[in-house]
């Protein structure tokens, strides 16, 4: 993995990383990717693979709770809020 790729990943992951750590990360990620690449040896084109018998089971979209009953407890954990809203920096 070259440093340009690493910069792109940092951006995609919304992570700030100090420059001195980047070099070490580059080495670690390289070794890890080399190791996990061994799955390429496995043939997965044989027969039909039964992918994911697990599926999400959704409840019916009904019976909403009373508006506002959880607002206070949830807002208590927000770093910044105003009234019953979470306050954020301007997006655009």
């Amino acid at each position, binding site marked *: 993995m070259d440093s340009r790729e690493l910069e792109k990943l940092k951006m995609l*992951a919304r992570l700030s990383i100090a420059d001195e750590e980047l070099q070490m*990360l580059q080495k*670690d*990620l390289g070794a890890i990717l080399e190791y996990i690449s061994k799955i390429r040896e496995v043939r997965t084109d044989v027969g039909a693979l039964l992918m994911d018998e*697990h599926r999400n*089971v959704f409840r019916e979209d009904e019976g909403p709770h009373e508006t506002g009953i959880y607002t206070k407890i949830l807002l208590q*954990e927000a*770093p910044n809020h105003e009234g019953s809203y979470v306050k*954020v920096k*301007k997006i655009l």
Partner: protein
Amino acid sequence: MGSIDLENLTIKKTHDHLVRGDFSARELGSACLKRAEEKNQETNAFLEIFEDVIEAGDEADARIREKKKDTPLLLGIPLAIKDNILIKGRVVSCASKILSSYKASYDATAIQKLKQAGAVFLGRTNMDEFAMGSSTENSAFGLTKNPRDVRRVPGGSSGGSAAAVSGNLALAALGSDTGGSIRQPASLTGIIGLKPTYGAVSRSGLIALASSLDQIGPLTKTIADARLLFSAIRGHDPNDSTSLPNAKNDSDKKPRTVGVPRTFLAQGCDPDVLKCFEATLTQLKNRGYEIRDLNLPNLPYSLAVYYIIQPAEASTNLARFDGIRYGLSAPAPDIAGVYAKTRGIGFGREVRRRILIGTFVLSSGYADAYYRKARAVRELIRADFDHAFKSVDAIVMPTTPSPAFMFGAKSDPLAMYAEDIFATSANLAGVPAISVPSGRAERDGIALPVGFQIIAPHGGEGTLFAIGEDVENLAL
């Protein structure tokens, strides 16, 4: 009240004492609190000890007085809870700076069930940050030491829970297992650790690492206690979309045949750990088990598959920690800066590493070669297990390739990941697995515990307990 001998108490024995009135739940809570506060100085198993465990005992005592005969087994029993499981109103930090003062706004379903059963909580236990690690060295709040040898790690990521039970600070604990995080620390500290069938225990209120792999499970001193705690927390939950329907009656068929993937075991396992394993097998054979050699051809790829799927899911799950809705928030001139800075400061090194790997294997141009390929190989591993379980009741392996290691011994991430080599396949296949202590391996003059791992088909916890009890009785 005589003195309460926490070193020799199990949940079952304690329950009998409570019902007989040998000591009250209040006295038990206070004895546990005293010991935990003392011993925690040595091992740092707990990030926080709950002093109100004493008052919580009063409620249990009232219930015991009310109906002496019909009292739930967990009534008044103090439990240690891993710091990624929500208890309403308590801090739950995942041993991360990003959540260091975050208070849970609701109870995890497993906690709700324990509360209904009358259990009380002694504290929250240390772990690798966001459950990423196999030594608890990745905690943002200090190392936890192995009570069997304090120069060594207790394993991880549920290292605090394992150290609390192994050091007799708590009678039992809950942990979570994504790729061995209950079984491996149980093995390294000489106790029982169960990873249930995927979907058997609700994940609601467990802070997610990798949602398709995570399970909550018990760490205990005996198989009987593991069975008891598992029965208390299992069950269908509409709040977890991958929760399984309630199990019908567990089969009480006595397991007879166990399979051993011998060629796989030869890779990278310490000779004396392998010797312990073979000695356990011989004893099981003497007890009438049939031992069969098995070949699960895709098993050697499980670790690589795991280290694609788990970081991929982790990088998505951890996207929610952005300094906006909860936890740490680092000031910056714009919102993108808040995200990046908060995450850069709040997450530790291993968490950042895995987020980057996960982001990479999911990124455009690489997702087919890594993530989708890994999912396909995962299905092959699952099929290997299905096939194997047609001819055997259970598959057995060592839990870990070596006993507890020294702090700092595995600073290379791949060396640490290799600790999970025998553990991850059960999570990938969603099958239940348990680690039971069996035998010892000597390091620097100390006989360290070695774990024997048993893996059963989906819903086969009963098989694990049956074989586990036999292993427990070998007293190797």
